[in-house]
């Protein structure tokens, strides 16, 4: 063990030593604490993608990528420390993978003029680029997710869900509360009945919530969970024999970690996603050749192909593509955080681009603009196959109900602008 630690330490020193790269990306990751099981695959995917770019292409347009990792433990205080300590290294973009840390960083990055990308989390109204100049949340946000779930239920029921009962089991925090407003608005439109069931951090204790579900027998259960809460909820749903195909989680409740402990019982559980799953891509061949076989994977290297690993990879891919856009726009390869912001604002993801990267159909097509920092709100539904132990997409990417969401986003961002004295403009 000692020897292993020592080798690991030496290897890390060697790896960190000669990193004299020019493009710095920060990875505010969490490999410890109650949410580590979810934080590790995301961080590994994020770092491995950049390692591959370095190994295969020599970086992004010839500029080597340097990753500065900082452990937040999903804790907001450590998040502040991490932000301040990595800011000086010229980090181009921040992706904290925590709604709490995102809220904290929103004013800070704006004042420091560094972009922040909260992919599928964070403050939803940051989609309004007129108010949130430095915050991006493409390709989809929580309110899109809430709408996706409802649209999916509508599709199953032939477009009519009036009188149906839908329960929302949510993490009792900023993150979990995000979809409530949207679901209430959608309830007005579609006439379903909404029940709210908060679960307190960290979510190991959910007996009473599921007892209530058993008593009230909602037709569908939606879940906004993270970390250990997901596994417990899936297990509880199995215990009360809730029909799993009527149980839909947000994308943060749709990793292998969440369903594997429940075994065969979890078969048919659905989760939303905004990127594709599995490892059946040409990209993975390169990853194996340049990163896995040379032993350069981040962490233990055992997360390849999992849902959250793919999401980390997708986040890194969007960051790398935005960096390329920024390099083209400004005619220099050594970009600054301010240039990176411009790159993100003009990012366009097309099928051709993704196919060229070896990841065909990996995510929805979208285009970011100054007014719209959140993409077009496309997502899909995945279903868990317990026998094959894999997630399968059961729908195409479909758009959320923009008619409901647009006014909500305008309202919330206007409130933020008023509270903080921001004049919206593009």
């Amino acid at each position, binding site marked *: 063990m000692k020897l292993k630690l020592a080798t*690991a330490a030496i290897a890390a020193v060697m790896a960190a030593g000669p990193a004299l790269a020019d493009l710095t990306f920060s990875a505010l990751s969490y490999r410890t604490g109650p949410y580590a099981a979810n934080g590790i695959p995301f961080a590994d995917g994020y770092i491995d993608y950049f390692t591959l770019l370095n190994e295969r292409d020599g970086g992004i347009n010839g500029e080597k990528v340097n990753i500065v990792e900082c*452990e937040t433990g999903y804790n907001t205080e450590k998040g502040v420390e991490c932000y301040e300590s990595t800011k000086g290294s010229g980090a181009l973009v921040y992706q904290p993978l925590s709604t709490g840390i995102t809220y904290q960083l929103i004013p*800070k990055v704006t004042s420091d003029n560094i972009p922040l990308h909260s992919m599928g989390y964070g403050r939803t*109204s940051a989609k309004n680029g007129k108010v949130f100049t430095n915050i991006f949340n493409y390709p989809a946000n929580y309110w899109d997710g809430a709408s996706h779930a409802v649209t999916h239920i509508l599709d199953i029921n032939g477009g009519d869900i009036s009188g149906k009962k839908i329960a929302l089991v949510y993490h009792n925090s900023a993150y979990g509360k995000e979809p409530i407003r949207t679901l209430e608005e959608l309830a007005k439109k579609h006439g379903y009945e909404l029940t709210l069931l908060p679960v307190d951090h960290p979510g190991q204790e959910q007996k009473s919530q599921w007892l209530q579900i058993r008593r009230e027998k909602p037709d569908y259960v939606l879940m906004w969970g993270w970390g250990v809460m997901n596994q417990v909820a899936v297990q509880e749903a199995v215990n009360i024999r809730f029909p799993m195909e009527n149980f839909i989680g947000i994308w943060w409740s749709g990793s292998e970690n969440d369903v594997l402990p429940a075994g065969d019982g979890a078969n048919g559980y659905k989760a939303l996603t905004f990127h594709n799953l599995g490892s059946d891509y040409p990209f993975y061949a390169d990853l194996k050749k340049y990163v896995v076989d040379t032993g350069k994977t981040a962490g233990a290297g055992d997360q390849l192909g999992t849902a959250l690993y793919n999401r980390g990879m997708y986040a890194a891919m969007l960051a790398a593509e935005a960096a390329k856009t920024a390099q083209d726009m400004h005619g220099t390869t050594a970009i600054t955080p301010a240039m990176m912001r411009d790159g993100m604002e003009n990012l366009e993801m097309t099928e051709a681009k993704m196919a060229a990267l070896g990841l065909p159909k990996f995510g929805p097509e979208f285009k970011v603009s100054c007014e719209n920092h959140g993409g077009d709100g496309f997502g899909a539904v995945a279903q868990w196959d317990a026998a094959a132990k894999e997630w399968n997409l059961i729908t195409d990417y479909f758009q959320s109900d923009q008619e409901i969401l647009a006014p909500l986003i305008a309202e919330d961002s206007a409130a933020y602008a008023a509270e903080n004295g921001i004049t919206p403009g593009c």
Partner: protein
Amino acid sequence: MFYREAGDFKTSYTEDNQTFPIKFDRYRYYAVLVFAFAVVPFVINDYWVNAVFLPFLIYAIAAIGLNILVGYCGQVSLGTGGFMAVGAYAVYKLMTSFPDVSMFIHVILAGVITAVVGVLFGLPSLRIKGFYLAVATLAAQFFLVWLFNRVPWFYNYSASGQISAPERTVLGVPITGAETAPWAAYLFCLVFVTVCAIIARNLTRGMAGRKWMAIRDMDIAAEIIGVNPLKAKLTAFAVSSFFVGISGALFFSVYLGAVEVGEVFGINKSFLVLFMVIIGGLGSIFGSFAGAAFLVLLPVLLKNTLVGGLGWPTDLAAHLEFIIVGALIIIFLIAEPHGLAQLWRVTKEKLRLWPFPH
């Protein structure tokens, strides 16, 4: 040699009773103050303020507050996180309702509001003692966090339930929000720490403090010699909550800027502050500072050495950090059960005799 009373003649009771009766100590104290007020603000940057000084100063206020209750009055409290939340939400409501008023006034008012809440939750202390009181304050902790999560009025009906500090000023200088200069945030907190520490020190040396200590040492005997337990316990709760409320208000508005009550002011915070008090030393103002420094600065220092200096993987470093801090706590408490303050006291005694100990 240099650290002794000899030759330092006092000609009045005031001089005799001052906080630092030894000349060397007194000058050291002035030197620290001058350094903190006149040198540090000119040399600090964002990192030092946000990662080191602000958490240290703010936790020091919280530790002083809890020390008054636990260390001086002997009432065990596990509600610190909840009371800090009261301070944070009070200052949030005040600063959003009255944007033009100086932050100084808001923070002090937040302390006053917390003091009132603290007295309310301190009422059971008249009947229940020791571990049972700890459980009662634990109820306060959970109730308050639940309340701030449950009632949308407290977070101004925002969609996520988070509170974020808008920009507010003192004499035209922004103190909260993203545009705050490092020196401004630092000085703002430093003023509060200094004033709080001086008030706490003088309260604990005066009649109020003696009453608290009498209650702590034996409440029945204290009652017999004429200490009113109702007054003594409730004033301890009030003063303690006042300080804790101020620290909660600063924690939210100046340090973090955005807060989610369950995560930031959870039971972990109560324990953290209690550990600061225990490690620093019960019944000592200096101990509150030492404990806060130990638990705030050591993890940052370790992280910087292990990850920044040696380049270790972050998860390995994070785990090692737990092990090292935990081991140090045990070692310190075995070596000196009365905390870092007692170590300092022993050092001072030795210094007085040095270099001729016999």
